[in-house]
């Protein structure tokens, strides 16, 4: 087996294990830290796919910004095991069922998928910065700009919701 395959199995093992620990650990701060490890191992997968831009963006955006905010909020709320309200069983069952349905639909969707149908997937250097920029700003210009508008809308909404009095 080549080295990259060992790395793949190791990273997958770490990703799945830490993802499981996110939901199994009782302490919310520990869960956040396990989630950071999960994101790191997913970033490692990007590196194995020769997509170094996605690798670094995964680290900057997810582990560097989003998880810091998660950790910030959890520390601020000071959640503890003792004061955690007891949840009823019905929401838990509902959550499990809906997650199961989601997983099944994902599997059904990806079962017949052919990776080679994607025009970009044939090029193994697609994850490098120049190629990604060219694809994003030439082939997928409009969707890219629309998604940025979506973010702007979300930002305006968040500011609007956090305002206490509306003038």
């Amino acid at each position, binding site marked *: 087996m080549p080295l990259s395959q060992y790395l793949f199995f190791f990273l997958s093992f770490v990703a799945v294990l830490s993802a499981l620990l996110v939901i199994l650990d009782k302490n919310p*701060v520990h869960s956040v*830290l396990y989630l*950071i490890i999960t994101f790191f191992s997913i970033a490692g997968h990007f590196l194995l796919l020769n997509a*170094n*831009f996605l690798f*670094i*963006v995964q*680290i*900057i955006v997810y*582990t*560097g*910004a989003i998880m*810091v*905010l998660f*950790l*910030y909020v959890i*520390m*601020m709320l000071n959640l503890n095991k003792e004061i955690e309200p007891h949840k009823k069983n019905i929401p838990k069952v509902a959550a499990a069922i809906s997650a199961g349905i989601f997983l099944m639909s994902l599997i059904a969707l990806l079962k017949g998928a052919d990776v080679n149908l994607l025009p970009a997937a044939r090029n193994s250097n697609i994850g*490098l*910065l120049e190629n990604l920029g060219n694809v994003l700003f030439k082939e997928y210009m409009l969707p890219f700009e629309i998604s940025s508008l979506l973010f702007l809308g979300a930002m305006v909404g968040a500011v609007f919701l956090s305002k206490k009095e509306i003038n």
Partner: protein
Amino acid sequence: MLVFVIYKIILVLVVFAISLGVAAYSTYAERKVAAFMQDRVGPDRAGPFGLLQPLADGLKMFMKEEIIPTVSNKFLFILGPSLAMLTALMAGVIIPWGGNITMGNTSFPLQITDINIGILYVFGVVSFGVYGIMIGGWASNNKYSLLGALRASSQMISYEIAMGLAIVALVMTTGTLSLGEIVAQQSGTWFNFVYQPLGCLIFIICAFAETNRAPFDLPECETELVGGYHTEYSSMKLGFYLFAEYINMFISSAIIVSLYFGGYNLPFQNLITQYIDGNVLSILQFLCFFTKVLMGIFFFMWVRWTIPRFRYDQLMNLGWKILIPLAIFNILATGVMMYALGKV
């Protein structure tokens, strides 16, 4: 291949040793600079001119009693300073310390690795750096530590945005993200701060905030928070936090120099390159780079002992309402200028 690996290992060890050495003597320099600014003598007991003071301080840190609060989370309590130290040392690998050294037929670049996403790597490390402070502050189980950790995280996230936007304008003019290439482009021409004066200023201000140096040292604000995030720390774990700050200062001043002040390039370098040997030039470049970095560190200290600490709302206002709009304006102005000069 073997030569390559050995050479890289040596380079890594040398960069590691230099980072630690500079950080150790920065503590001494900081006290001497403070003394100079306040018309005092400063440390002068250990060795000539007090030059052995860092050794004495280090020994003191090791000898102190180690206290781990019983109500704290022990694993995370130890993980905090370790992470702070780890992330502080990680950014050194992409800094170009000088030109190539040629031995026989092989040339060895004085840069550990020149990845083509160099600047983004720095951002990744910087954004990860906040975890050391946050985890340590939370694991201490002390309200002052927690407040310091919260301050650190919100401050670093806020200033990262302005820092990133300042870099975008620089990347527009240089057309590359690789630190080695950015430095090579500045050889024999104007340094980048001439083209990006506003971006350079914003980047330096954000570097102060990211390293938690005065006037942005709110996370360890003694007058309000006892000791901030490291209130509960003692012995070498406290030493690691303090040491990580000095390493961060060294690395960020090296990055500022590489991005905006020509990196290892000597001023008017193209006038002398034909008269001297390549290896001699590389050594000169290394010395020049080091001089610039030390000047950067001195600037950090100069500011610390000159400008008083901000209030927290002033800090946030500066970050969000002044620096971010300025950085966006800088991007716009750079784009317009490049279009007007026909560079696009």
